[in-house]
C-alpha cells in the first residue's frame, strides 16, 4: 500500500496537534503503554463517572501513527460509556489486524477507519493499536501494558480470531 493512504491529512494533523494532550488531575483510571520495539511510550489518564468516560488525556513519545491513533481515540471515546469504548477497542483492533473490513462490515469506527491501512504494514500494526490496548488496560485497572510477550495485541487478536 501507499503511505499516502496511511499518512492521511487527518493522521498528520493529529500527530502535529494532538488533542487531549496532557495528564488529568484526579484521574480515576490510568495506564502506561509501551512498545519496546520502537520505543512508543504513552501515559493515559481517565475520569470515569457512573460508567461514562467524562475525561481522557494522554501524553508520551511515539511515532506519528501511534500519536494520531491516541489523539483520535481520546476524541472518540470522550463522553462514551465504558461499554461503547470497549466495543471501539475491539473493532479498532480487528480493523488493524485485518479481521474487520470497515468498508464491508458494520462497525462504529467512523473516521477511525483512516487507520485501516496499517493492516498491510504488519510492523506498524502495534503502533496503531497501542493506545487502544492502553485504554483497555486502564479501564481494567491493569496499569501498564506492553506490546510484547503475553500482552502482544497482535498475538491476542490473532488468538481470538484464528
Amino acid at each position, binding site marked *: 500500500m501507499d503511505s*499516502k493512504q496511511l499518512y492521511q491529512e487527518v493522521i498528520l494533523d493529529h500527530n502535529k496537534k494532538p488533542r487531549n494532550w496532557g495528564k488529568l488531575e484526579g484521574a480515576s483510571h490510568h495506564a502506561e503503554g509501551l512498545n519496546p520495539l520502537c*520505543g512508543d511510550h504513552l501515559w493515559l489518564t481517565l475520569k470515569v463517572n457512573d460508567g461514562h468516560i467524562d475525561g481522557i488525556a494522554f501524553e508520551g513519545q*511515539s*511515532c506519528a501513527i501511534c500519536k494520531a491513533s491516541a489523539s483520535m481515540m481520546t476524541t472518540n471515546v470522550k463522553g462514551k460509556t465504558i461499554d461503547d469504548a470497549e466495543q471501539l477497542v475491539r473493532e479498532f483492533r480487528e480493523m488493524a489486524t485485518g479481521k474487520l473490513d470497515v468498508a464491508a462490515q458494520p462497525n462504529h469506527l467512523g473516521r477511525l477507519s483512516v487507520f485501516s491501512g496499517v493492516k498491510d504494514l504488519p510492523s506498524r500494526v502495534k503502533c496503531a493499536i497501542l493506545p487502544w490496548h492502553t485504554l483497555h488496560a486502564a479501564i481494567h485497572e491493569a496499569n501498564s501494558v506492553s506490546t510484547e510477550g503475553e500482552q502482544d495485541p497482535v498475538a491476542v487478536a490473532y488468538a481470538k480470531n484464528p
Partner: protein
Amino acid sequence: MNAATSLKTVVGSAASTAPFDLARIRADFPILEITVNGKPLAYLDNAASAQMPQPVLDRLVQYQTREHANIHRAVHYLSETATAAYEGARRKIQRFLNAREEREVIYTRGTTDAINLVMHGYGRAFLGKDDEIIVSQLEHHSNIVPWQMLCQEKGCKLRVIPCDDTGELLLDEYEKLFNAHTKFVAVTHVSNALGTVNPVKAMIATAHRRGVPILVDGAQAAPHLRVDVQDMDCDFYCFSAHKLCGPTGIGILYGKAAYLERMQPYQGGGDMILSVTFEKTTYNALPYKFEAGTPPIAAAIGLGAAVDYISDVGIENIAAWEHQLLRYATEQVGGMRGVRMIGTAKEKAAVLSFNVDGVHPHDVGTILNEEGVAVRTGHHCAQPVMLRFGVPATARASFAFYNTLEEVDQLVTGIRRVQKMFA
C-alpha cells in the same frame, strides 16, 4: 546533486587482485533487480543482513542436489563428499581470518551463538564471584546479555567503557577499568548502530598487558575490512555468515587453541565425543568438541563460497568503495537541514544513523519504504547506545559494496519526502 554515473565507477586498490566493476558485481545479486512499491529497490540494510550473490546460491544448490549426506559419519561417497566440502569451507575461513590452525575455527549458529559459547565454555568455567568483565557502551545486546547472565549466575560485575559524543570509545577510561578483578574483555570491532570502528588492536594489547583474554565481536567488521586474527592477537573473534553475503544460521567462532582446549564444551551430543559410556564420556578434539549435533552443512559450505566471493572482489576494494559511499552519503544526508547524524567517529564503517527532526524513525522507515529504500529503524539491538545519545531509536542506512551513489540519492529524495509530509 545527482551522483556521477557510479555504475561505471571503477575503483581499485594496489592490494587487490582485480579492478572493482560495480555493474558486474550488481549483476551477481539477483535480488537487487526487484522493485518495491514500483521503485527500484535500494537495499540499505546491510548491517542487518547482506544479500547473497549467484555463486553462493549456486553452491547451495550444487551441494543440495549433488553432494548432500551427513558429515563425519558414514563411509559412503556422499558422506565423504559432504565432509570434504564442509571441512574445505573451514579451511577457506581459516585463510580468510588468517587463523594459525584450522581447529581454531569453530562453526556456530552465528555471532550470538559464538559469544554464548565463550560465555559458557570460558566464562562459566573460569570466572567467579567479584570477577569483572569489561564491555563497551557500543555493544550489540548479544555482547551484553550473555555476560549479564554470567554475572547473575557467578556474582561477577560488568564494567562499561564509555564513548564520547561522536561515538568513539574513551580509551583512557578503558585503561582505568582494569584492576585485579578484571578477568575478561568483550568488545565490538565495529558498532552496528553507529558504524564506529574501534581500535581493537590497541585494546587487545591493553588487555594482554594485564593478562586478560579478550573477545572481539566482528559481526559488523568481517564483511567490510581485512581481519587478521594473528596480527590483531585477539583471543576470540566471531562473525555471522549472513552479513557476509552468506546464508543465515551459520557463523564462526575463532579462538586461540590454547583457550579452546581448556574450555568446557557448550553443548553435548553427537560428533563432539570420542567415546561414550554411561560412566564416562571423552570429548572430541578441536574443533569438534564445540560442534555437537548435525550442523547446517549447506550453510557452512555456502559461507565458504561467500568467503571466496568476497576474496575475489577483494576486501580492500570493498573497503575502498564503501568508504566512497559513506563519504558521499555523509555529505548528502548530513548536509540536509533538519537531519541529525548520530555517530560521527573519525573511523567509521559505511553506516549512517540519523534522525529527522520531529519525525519518529519508524515513520521515516515506512515512508522511505515507499521510495523503495530499505533502512533499519529502531534501537538496533543496542539500547545502551540509544540511551547514550538520548534518542529512543534512529533510522540507519548501512551500505555494502554493491550499493551505488544513485541509491544514496534515492535515500536523500526519500528523506525530503518525509520532511515534506511532516512539515
